[in-house]
């Protein structure tokens, strides 16, 4: 059985290789090759899952050792895969959602001449992501970690002719690199502390070292997680990442890659459990981010950016849960999975809307679309209900559990975190309702007005067959796009319930992550009630602002907070001023220094030697007699030297 694990990774990797090296002759069938291989990987995953269910909890860990990777004395890195419940969960999520989105892309990218390359990149992403979750040691995980970074770089910048896309891609990669730095330092720390960085040995020996070391490792891992999962302070790239094609946003920047940080933290649970300070930091980051993202989400008029903000905030929830320790690990993952379903669904819905609206992304130019694209409306609506935590839908279960866990942490921390989580729930309800209303309800603001705001112009070549600059004709997307949306909608409706009825998910993951009931000051019922209240408040406000009043098709100036939120709470301005400007000045001055100082010293020496020799030349006046003088003087000096030597 374990030999199948390698195939999980191999299938999409093969697809990537074939598609990227295949050349033009594959252009026609490229998308299908990619989709089929992704599907194949999913099938393998299901087979392995079935096999795993057959065993009892103790024997569910499969290890496949492939080859020794980097052997240098005590530094032994192997290519070894580890398939346990945790990674199984991810495998299913990644391959499942991945395959669906491949399918969706077949329709979405239909008219892009570089489609083959697109699917190659998607497959590459799948392979890297699977490598990430299947790795048995941190170094191999690091490979997947950067692999997904590369894939996301390539996909964000897929429309490279758009400078904005290229810049966004670069930004994403760089910010991620900062996180990767944290990961690599963490690995080095592990090596110096434990002499290895394989999961098993490290986790089993955590107890034998000091808490300081563990805290350091934990913080470094957190840094890595922040980079990959767009947590404060490394969140700035996610918004720009929306420059990529919508399926990419759905798969990478909503469902899977951005959740890698959560995986890392949960996977390293043993370390975090032993380092409370690191855990605290994680929870703080999570809480801050979930509010940050939510606030940003409220102000965006670009539908994808609004969803990106929401993604940020939802991952904030997961990180928060993961930071709570054994109380929260399971729910972090559970929310991760459900979020995978409904957020992917929402993004696909958004994509479908844009598909029908000549790639218009400004929600203020939408409105009343529900009767033109019913399927999209329904699936999107279900996703919406799921994410705000409407009772019975998946979001309800997972998020509710996290809020409970937050309170269960106990003490003032518990209250603060819980409060933040509740507030977040309210804001989530607000901005999602806002999106919903602005897109599908209200009057049809897209009628009789120039479409395609200039910055979005020539955005997605997929639009080129729609009549440009004409009034958009909203229409439902083709089956190949709607089917994935429907499937995801189903998932987002029933997933939560399926997982939590009888704590299926809890029992499934417990052997890996461990679980402990915190001592919650509030009863579960109270928390749920509170959540409901917040939810209603949020929805209510949103309805009051956007449902009852007509939405101006040009954004009003808005309050200070609103404007700040539109600018992603000034994060980019900060980065620009501090890092970009500072960096430019630094490099420029260094170039100058290199040229004048370091090089100048050398050239100066050369020049002085030249001048000296010029002066010496004057001694060579050509008069035999002056030569004779110098000769004679030399002779005199020699005699003197001889005498001295004899005297000494």
């Amino acid at each position, binding site marked *: 059985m374990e030999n199948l694990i390698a195939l999980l990774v191999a299938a999409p990797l093969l697809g990537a290789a074939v598609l990227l090296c295949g050349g033009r002759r594959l252009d026609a069938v490229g998308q299908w090759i990619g989709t089929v291989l992704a599907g194949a990987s999913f099938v393998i995953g299901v087979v392995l899952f079935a096999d795993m269910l057959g065993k009892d909890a103790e024997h569910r860990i499969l290890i496949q050792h492939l080859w020794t990777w980097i052997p240098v004395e005590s530094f032994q890195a192997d290519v070894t895969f580890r398939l346990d419940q945790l990674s199984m969960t991810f495998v299913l999520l990644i391959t499942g959602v991945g395959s669906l989105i491949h399918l969706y892309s077949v329709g979405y990218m239909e008219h892009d001449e570089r489609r083959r390359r697109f699917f190659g990149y998607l497959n590459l992403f799948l392979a890297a992501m699977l490598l990430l979750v299947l790795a048995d040691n941190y170094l191999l995980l690091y490979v997947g970690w950067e692999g997904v970074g590369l894939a996301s770089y390539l996909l964000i910048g897929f429309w490279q002719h758009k400078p904005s896309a290229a810049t966004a891609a670069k930004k994403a990669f760089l910010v991620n690199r900062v996180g990767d730095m944290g990961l690599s330092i963490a690995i080095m720390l592990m090596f110096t502390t434990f002499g290895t960085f394989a999961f098993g040995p490290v986790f089993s020996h955590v107890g034998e070292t000091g808490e300081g070391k563990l805290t350091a490792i934990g913080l470094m891992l957190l840094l890595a997680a922040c980079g990959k999962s767009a947590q404060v302070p490394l969140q700035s790239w996610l918004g720009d990442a929306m420059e990529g094609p919508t399926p990419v946003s759905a798969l990478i920047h909503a469902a899977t890659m951005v959740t890698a940080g959560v995986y890392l933290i949960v996977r390293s649970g043993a370390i975090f459990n032993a380092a409370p300070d690191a855990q605290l930091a994680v929870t703080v980051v999570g809480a801050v981010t979930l509010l940050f993202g939510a606030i940003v989400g409220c102000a965006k008029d670009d539908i994808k950016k609004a969803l990106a903000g929401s993604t940020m905030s939802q991952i904030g929830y997961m990180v928060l849960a993961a930071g709570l320790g054994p109380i929260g690990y399971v729910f972090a993952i559970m929310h991760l999975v459900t979020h995978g379903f409904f957020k992917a669904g929402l993004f696909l819905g958004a994509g479908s809307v844009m598909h029908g609206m000549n790639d218009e992304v400004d929600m203020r130019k939408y409105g009343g679309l529900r009767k033109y694209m019913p399927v999209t409306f329904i699936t999107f609506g279900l996703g919406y209900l799921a994410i705000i935590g409407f009772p019975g839908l998946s979001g309800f279960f997972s998020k509710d559990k996290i809020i409970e866990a937050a309170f269960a942490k106990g003490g003032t921390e518990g209250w603060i975190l819980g409060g933040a989580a509740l507030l977040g729930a309210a804001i989530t309800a607000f901005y999602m309702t806002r999106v919903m209303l602005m897109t599908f309800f209200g009057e049809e603001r897209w009628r009789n007005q120039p479409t395609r705001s200039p910055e979005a112009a020539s955005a997605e070549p997929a639009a080129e067959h729609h009549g440009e600059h004409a009034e958009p004709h909203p229409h439902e997307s083709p089956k190949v796009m709607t089917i994935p949306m429907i499937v995801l909608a189903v998932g987002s409706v029933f997933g939560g319930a399926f997982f939590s009825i009888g704590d299926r998910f809890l029992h499934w993951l417990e052997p890996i992550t461990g679980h402990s009931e915190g001592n919650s000051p509030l009863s579960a019922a109270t928390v749920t009630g509170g959540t409901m209240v917040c939810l209603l408040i949020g929805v209510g406000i949103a309805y009051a602002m956007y449902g009852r009043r007509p939405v101006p098709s040009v954004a009003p100036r808005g309050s200070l907070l609103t404007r700040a939120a539109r600018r992603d709470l000034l994060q980019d301005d900060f980065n620009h001023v501090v890092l970009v400007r500072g960096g430019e000045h630094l490099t420029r001055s260094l170039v100058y220094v290199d040229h004048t100082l370091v090089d100048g010293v050398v050239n100066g020496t050369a020049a002085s030697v030249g001048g000296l020799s010029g002066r010496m030349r004057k001694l060579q*006046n050509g008069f035999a007699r002056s030569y004779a003088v110098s000769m004679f003087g030399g002779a005199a000096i020699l005699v003197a030297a001889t005498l001295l030597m004899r005297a000494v």
Partner: protein
Amino acid sequence: MNPVNYLYLAALLFTIGATGVLIRRNAIVVFMCIELMLNACNLAFVTFSRMHGNLDGQIIAFFTMVVAAAEVVVGLAIIVSLFRSRHSASVDDASLMKL
């Protein structure tokens, strides 16, 4: 008197000759000064031969003379040809590395 004085004399003459070489511009005089130096050496040789009580020193002096003769012949010839080309016997006129 100590025969070493001969050596002192030789040194003196040698130095005078050398200085002459440096000071005079007339090639012929310069040449004479060189001869003077050679002679000073000869004197020293002879004195040494007396000191060591064998004739090798004298032999050397003898050879020196012969060589000096040859050298004078050639040197004077050079001076003559130089004079022909430059109509002067001043060594400073030959300050360029070509005739």
